[in-house]
């Protein structure tokens, strides 16, 4: 029935064929269609990119390619044939023989997808050893070799570590080694770099691409980032609402997308705000050092924020961006240095600040979900600061809530809804309205668009820009995404390891000459060019022969 797994089929043979696949998911007490009849063909050695917003069903489809559905989902129609095996009809035991050996899976969050109780090497060789692909000792030696190829530090010993002992980027590479260990015919990459910083993402992408090339493994690469998938895939398929929008070879797709929807996927990258210079400083941070217990996080940070402008703070995770926000809001008392607002020094600690001082600086968070009380209605959420800061009551308060909802482009029918009844973009809009309710001068936006899809991101950014124009609000915009920076900022602060690398007007920062770190950061942002990664790596190699 099946080919001998040790006998690889000829390249170009069809490896995976999905026809009219339909999958239902169970929620709100009934079954909803998630995938509505998608076809997919993958040949040996080919990499297919699956792209779409969250909820498009790309992850569900990727897992279905293994014959697996998450609890609460079921395949209701169509056929999935992997190398002649019908995965829809196959029994569990039959599929288990394929999983981890002939089809491997690389998950989004490496930190959550490794078992915290076992050493990395044991998890890497687990599948190969279970099915007796080769003796355990050989698998371990092979894993070390894979670690080396994936450019992990100390390949001999890194396997003896536990998941929490290595960084996210390293874990993601170990997971690639784990998938590669049994030399599968097909690997499903499910948003493998989404949780990583751009600088780390480049390394992981390069490692994954070279190893997939080397073993000529077929792959399905799932992501919402078109620029990333352009580096990995031979063909790109765009999904929306569980249906295929279009499929085309990567270069054709990037140069001549047929559907408007596909074009809108990178619209946010086209958004660009002209910068305006300003000398009127509203908020300044002077020589601040801050620490969490014994761990020093900020070193001599000095930032000045001009009134009515947007200052974007960029840097990878751990660079001290959010800690700076905590110092400004008074949540974290700095060890040295001070924060001044309109020329007056602010008390270091939140509880020493007056209501007026609190009112002037508001905050919007990355996870709108967790920043709202799930038991409060939209009205309660927005009305609270109105009452607390402005003392509004009764009719005046209600009118103001309606007005605020109008400002964020929602109507009054939203007043009685709970956060759980809103979409991600709507939730973030409510958080913006809550911040606006206090009539602030400065709003600190901490990665407010990072958890959102491209199109929704665009809407939120446009809204923020409009509000800035209308009310002369100042934004401190924390982000790691350079496209967002281009879209919204006047000035940029680059942070690295708790220090300010440089601060200046957007045009100055984004044009040469660059300090080393800024250059690394900027060059790591994937571009809509299938050759970008190749060129980048070649460029870096020639500059840095090590």
């Amino acid at each position, binding site marked *: 029935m099946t080919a001998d797994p040790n006998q690889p089929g000829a390249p170009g043979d069809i490896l995976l064929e999905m026809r009219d696949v339909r999958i239902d998911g169970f929620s709100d007490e009934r079954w909803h269609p998630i995938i509505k009849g998608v076809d997919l063909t993958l040949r040996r050695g080919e990499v297919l990119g699956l792209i779409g917003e969250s909820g498009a069903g790309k992850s569900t489809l990727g*897992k279905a390619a*293994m014959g*697996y559905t*998450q609890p609460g989902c079921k395949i209701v129609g169509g056929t999935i044939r992997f190398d002649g095996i019908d995965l829809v009809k196959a029994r569990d035991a039959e599929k*288990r*023989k*394929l*999983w*981890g*050996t002939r089809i*491997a*899976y690389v*998950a989004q*969050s490496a930190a*959550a*997808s*490794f*078992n*915290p*109780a*076992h050493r990395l090497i044991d998890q890497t060789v*687990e*599948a190969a050893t*279970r*099915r007796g692909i080769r003796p355990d000792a050989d698998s371990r030696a092979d894993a070390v070799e894979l670690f080396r190829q994936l450019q992990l530090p100390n390949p001999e010993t890194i396997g003896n*570590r*536990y998941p*929490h*002992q290595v960084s996210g980027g390293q874990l993601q590479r170990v997971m690639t080694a*784990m998938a590669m260990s049994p030399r599968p015919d097909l690997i499903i990459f499910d948003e493998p770099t989404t949780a990583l910083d751009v600088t780390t993402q480049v390394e992981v992408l390069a490692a994954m691409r070279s190893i997939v090339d080397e073993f000529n493994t077929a792959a399905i690469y799932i992501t919402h980032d078109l620029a990333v998938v352009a580096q990995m895939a031979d063909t790109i398929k765009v999904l929306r609402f569980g249906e295929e929008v279009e499929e085309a070879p990567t270069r054709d797709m990037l140069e001549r997308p047929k559907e408007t929807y596909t074009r809108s996927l990178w619209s946010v990258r086209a958004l660009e705000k002209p910068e305006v210079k300003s000398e009127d400083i509203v908020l300044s941070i002077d020589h601040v050092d801050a620490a969490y217990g014994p761990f020093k996080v900020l070193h001599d940070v000095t930032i000045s924020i001009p009134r009515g402008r947007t200052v974007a703070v960029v840097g990878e995770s751990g660079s001290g961006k959010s800690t700076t926000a905590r110092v400004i809001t008074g949540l974290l008392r700095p060890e040295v240095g001070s924060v001044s607002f309109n020329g007056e020094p602010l008390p270091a600690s939140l509880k020493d600040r007056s209501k007026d001082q609190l009112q002037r600086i508001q905050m919007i968070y990355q996870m709108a979900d967790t920043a709202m009380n799930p038991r409060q209605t939209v009205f309660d959420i927005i009305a609270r600061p109105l009452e607390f800061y402005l003392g509004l009551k009764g009719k005046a308060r209600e009118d103001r809530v309606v007005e605020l909802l109008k400002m964020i482009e929602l109507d009054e029918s939203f007043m009685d809804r709970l956060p759980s009844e809103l979409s991600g973009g709507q939730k973030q809009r409510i958080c913006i309205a809550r911040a606006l309710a206090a009539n602030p001068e400065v709003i600190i936006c901490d990665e407010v668009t990072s958890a959102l899809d491209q199109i929704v991101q665009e809407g939120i950014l446009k809204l923020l820009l409009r509000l800035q124009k209308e009310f002369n609000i100042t934004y401190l915009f924390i982000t790691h995404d350079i496209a967002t920076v281009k879209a919204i900022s006047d000035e940029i602060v680059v942070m690295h390891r708790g220090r300010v690398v440089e601060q200046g007007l957007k045009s100055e920062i984004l044009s040469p000459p660059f300090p080393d770190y800024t250059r690394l950061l900027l060059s790591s942002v994937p571009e809509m060019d299938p050759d970008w990664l190749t060129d980048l790596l070649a460029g870096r190699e020639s500059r840095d022969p090590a």
Partner: protein
Amino acid sequence: MNAVLATILKRLGLGIATLFVVSAIIFSSISMLPGDFGQSVLGQSATKETVAAFRKELGLDKPAPVRYFEWLGAVLKGDLGTSFSGRNASGQDRSRKVSDLVMPRLWNTLFLAGVTAVIAVPLALFLGLTTALYRNSAYDRTVNAATLTTISTPEFFVAYILILLLASLWPVFPSLANVDASTGLGERLYRVALPALTLTLVIVAHMMRMTRAAIINLLASPYIEMARLKGASRSEIILKHALPNAWAPIATVIAFNLAYLVVGVVVVEVVFVYPGIGQLMVDAVTSRDIPVVQACALIFAATYILLNLTADIIGIVTNPRLLHPR
């Protein structure tokens, strides 16, 4: 490793400190018990002078803090004091040392608890793991319903049902569990069979349900899905991928139930006339035998603290984040 050792030592120190606080609470709450030992031994007719003389002889006339530190000092030297009972108004003193009263009873209690634990803990783990493995199956529902029934039934009732079934209708085991120092091990095991079975039925549900819940809770983790997608079978997933991460909550609930076996079984002791420490303490409270009550309470507190400490340590050493710091 040293960090773990330091944490464990810190917990141990905290445990000892807790024990001191508890000793003070025990002492002061017993001092506040209504009634007076002297009065109750000598009777209502005794004159004030006789009572005072009697109190003086027992040392009850000293202020409470002095008595507390005297008692504490003696306990630290291993001397639990002398029982009040055995004295009477005529001045005869046939009182016994508290340790002579408590130790055989403590041994009996520990024996019963040990036998029960040896049956109940593996049984609960087995049931918890298998119900998690076959969750929502008929097996799972049956086990859940059965254990819920036994835990919701008062233990004396379980005890009488077992006596009716296994001692009366089908006389397999004795209904009385009266043992003494001369009883051999085999005979002892035979006699404690029914009380041990009763206690097993009472505690197994709690541990089994916690095991099941802890495992099922982990089954939603991404690393469990990863294990499935690496081809692991259901039993491998439960035993190899879920269980190693579930020990901390399971150990806590086991410790709680083992502590109950030592300190909470007086009802079962009474039903089976088993000479355990629970009965001794109840008797001592009735007769206002303060040294015995204090000794028992201290032993109970130490049991709780020791078992919870063990659970904490299991939680620490099964957590790779603590065992292998970055």
